[in-house]
């Protein structure tokens, strides 16, 4: 039983981004939920940036959420940088959940502990 659980965890870890989505149609984009956790990994890559966030599920378990954001280009113009999130820091993420019920989502915004808001788009062009 214990071994099976370990294998299951290993399988989950080996496929973190293999099940990644690149189409907005994978998410309930007009629904937003909020999660808070510790940054395990921040990947600054195209066509999406990634945050792996370790979240306490309230039942004593830690769940790794795999959350994707817009591309580095537009996020740069919204104030993000490749080092804007540090491994180990606590952040709150507003995100649209995946339709397949996996622990993943599409970023609406990220809020750092000091209140800094990282929006998912720069201010509108006037």
């Amino acid at each position, binding site marked *: 039983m214990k071994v099976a659980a370990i294998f299951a965890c290993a399988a989950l870890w080996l496929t973190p*981004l*293999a*099940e*990644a*989505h*690149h*189409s*907005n*149609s*994978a*998410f309930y*984009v*007009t*629904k*937003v939920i*909020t999660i808070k956790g510790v940054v395990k990994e921040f990947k600054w*890559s*195209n*066509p*999406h940036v990634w945050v792996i966030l370790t979240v306490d599920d309230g039942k004593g378990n830690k769940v790794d959420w795999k959350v994707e954001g817009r*591309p*580095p*280009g*537009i996020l*740069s*113009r*919204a*104030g993000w940088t490749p080092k804007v999130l540090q491994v180990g820091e606590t952040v709150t993420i*507003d*995100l*649209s959940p*995946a*339709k*397949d019920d996996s622990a993943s*989502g*599409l*970023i*609406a*915004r990220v809020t750092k502990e000091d209140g800094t*808001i990282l*929006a*998912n*788009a*720069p*201010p*509108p*062009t*006037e």
Partner: protein
Amino acid sequence: MKVNTILLGMLAGVAALHAQSTPPDFSGVYYPLNPFGRFAATTSAPKGPPPRPTASAPLSDGSRGRTPDEPSLTPEYLAKWQTISKTRIAGSPEYDLTAKCLPPGMPAMMSMAYGMEVMQNKDKITFFSELNDALRRVYLDGRKPSQKVLDDPTYAGYSMGHWEGDTLVVETVALRDNTFIEGFTPHSDQMTVHERIRLLEPGLLEDRITVTDPKALTKSWETVKTYRKASREKGTDELREFACAEGLGEAK
């Protein structure tokens, strides 16, 4: 005195002729005025705490049906749209070309949601889209597509342009039939795209787009895109490399 007046008059005439024959320069980096359609993107408000976002992106799976301002489809192409919509509602990226790092194609690429760079000279004007590093060339030297080009459709198609005063008039043909007009509205290989591009004021570029397609559309469809030129002072006049294939191994 008389001679000077005549000379001045001649110079003014030459200048006027020159102004008439020199088209405006559209070169520069631009951002669309309304990149994400009806959806208000989450942006930092200048004053007070911004409201909690209620969406992360525009709804684009067709689950609310089609609106009257979208292209009017023939029954055959409406059925195609419905097929694609079902896959998107189910969360599948099957028909999402840009998610596979392919170019959005014309005219969808002129939405330029992530920014556009225009490069212009006398014989050619090139439009570059940060999204998926997509590019199109508009030939201004009067050339026409060869039969070889017509038999080999592409995502951006083949664009011929000419100036009518300060307006650039562009006709685009030889387009692939697996791209979308906008959103995921399908079209046939008979689609042509007509554009009238002009500066409404310095730094404000407008593209009036008319799409015709005798097989897919019951009537021609028009849309207007408006873009604001980026400024060097704000540091927004440099687009970033997209390199979409970086994440291809992660695609579902």
